[in-house]
């Protein structure tokens, strides 16, 4: 295949429709950035749920040897470390409660590790490890993560479990979580909806660009068809033009997302809001090349190449 011919056509095409191509690039850039932010927020919400539970969850902490609750004057932990019989009793209670959808056991080690991660973010990891450590895995409570049927109904299960032997305390962060997830949901869908509208605009611009280019090249295309050029060969300059605009748009969006991740998250939110785990660079990479939801490196080219392929068939019918 005559690559020289294809690339010279590509260069001419890009120059001829420069303003349209710029419009596509800018629209793609903004929409893909928004899509990427939506993906990052989605990852952020997932991270927060993994560590803190969601707005449907409460945490039932179990007694440890010499449990601090004893000093508060409650007698639930009088028998020391929670026993198998006590756990069975608690599970029975959870099983029979109509407010409980499901529950999951978290071991002392898992619970300790999560707390350690949180402490490290606040620069207090030294309390958990090394010479100056003041807490150990043994002192850390195992727990039940209880998922509720409805975010507003937990009073029944709380009062049923609260007084049982072996239950040290109940952690109920539903209200705080509700707010955080509310904000994240708005951010996520807001950016995706905005991105969707702009991507639609980008599609229309791509369609327009192709129509103009096909019009400007109708004589060439007519001759190409008559002398027997293949459909792919005729469509190739169009596809390459679309690919170039997609690559530039994706590149700009990837840069903007990196800036968001660095200044917005790492140097911004993560410094100020330490009780939440924050998305990292691996999540950034997911937002670029993940498959679900599709990363912007897939999204950008797909959204320009597919309509180009369809429209070229329409305007450049062989």
């Amino acid at each position, binding site marked *: 295949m005559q690559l020289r011919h294809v690339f010279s056509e590509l260069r001419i095409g890009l120059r001829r429709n420069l303003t349209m191509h710029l419009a596509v690039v800018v629209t793609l850039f903004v929409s893909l950035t928004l899509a990427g932010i939506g993906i990052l927020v989605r990852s952020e919400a997932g991270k927060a749920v993994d560590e803190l539970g969601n707005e449907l969850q409460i945490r039932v902490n179990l007694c440890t040897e010499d449990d601090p609750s004893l000093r508060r004057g409650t007698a639930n932990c009088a028998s020391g470390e929670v026993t198998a019989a006590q756990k069975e009793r608690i599970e029975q209670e959870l099983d029979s409660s109509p407010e409980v959808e499901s529950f999951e056991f978290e071991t002392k080690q898992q619970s300790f590790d999560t707390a350690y991660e949180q402490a490290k973010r606040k620069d207090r990891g030294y309390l958990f490890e090394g010479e100056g450590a003041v807490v150990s895995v043994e002192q850390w409570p195992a727990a039940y993560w209880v998922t509720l049927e409805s975010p507003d109904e937990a009073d029944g299960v709380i009062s049923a479990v609260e007084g049982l032997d072996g239950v040290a305390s109940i952690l109920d962060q539903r209200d705080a979580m509700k707010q955080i997830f509310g904000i994240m949901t708005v951010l996520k869908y807001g950016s995706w909806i905005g991105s969707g509208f702009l991507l639609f605009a980008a599609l229309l611009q791509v369609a327009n660009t192709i129509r103009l280019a096909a019009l400007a090249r109708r004589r060439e295309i007519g*001759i*190409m068809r008559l*002398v027997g050029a293949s*459909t792919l*060969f005729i469509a190739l300059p169009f596809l390459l033009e679309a690919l170039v605009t997609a690559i530039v748009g994706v590149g700009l969006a990837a840069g903007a997302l990196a800036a968001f991740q660095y200044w917005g998250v790492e140097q911004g939110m993560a410094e100020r809001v330490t009780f939440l785990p924050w998305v990292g660079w691996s999540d950034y990479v997911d937002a670029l090349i993940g498959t679900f939801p599709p990363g912007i490196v897939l999204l950008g080219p797909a959204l320009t190449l597919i309509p180009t392929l369809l429209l070229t068939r329409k305007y450049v019918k062989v």
Partner: protein
Amino acid sequence: MIRFEKVTKRYAGPGRPALDQVTLDIDKGEFVYLVGQSGSGKSTALRLVLRELRPTTGRLYVAGKEINRMAGWKVPRLRREIGTVFQDFRLLPNKTVAENVAFAQQVIGKSHKEISKAVPATLELVGLKDKADRMPDELSGGEQQRVAVARAYVNRPMILIADEPTGNLDPQTSVGIMNLLGDINQTGTTVVMATHDHGIVDQFTKRVIELENGKVVRDEAAGSYGFQHLDNQQED
């Protein structure tokens, strides 16, 4: 080389078909004039051969293939066996003579080496060797049509289709183009030429197929343009 078997072409909408049960056979190496008034079906016949259109009914064979049932992706390969020349030349104004001819080879993926051999040879054949670097608008109409013929012939097609190739040219220049088409025909290329040019048809005697209202009304081995035309002239 080209065979129409009861080919009917009906466009959307009411009215008579553009081609009506046409049956004809054009052999390899023949030179055929397709004559008839505007709307008689000449252009439709040519576009069917190029498979720009498909017959409504009937069978059509071109270069040994039944093309009414040919898959879309095979059409480019068919068209490489057919060269096409138009009344309005259809050259690319921003390319030189040589580039216009080379274009027909580039877009079907011929190598640089092949092109640099075939283009000068073809330009020599059409008598424009010394004008290879001119732009089309620097050439006369006859010269532009020679470039168009060179472009149609550079891939050495089996069939050359010419739709009113002399329609925009004065009689003297037309003779030059006809001699050129005759030379190409001598190499074994089948030439099918749709024309209104009675002078040419009468001067360069070849097989004449006359269409009227989408039907073949005359097919003569060495024909003239036709009586209908003479009648018109007497009225003038």
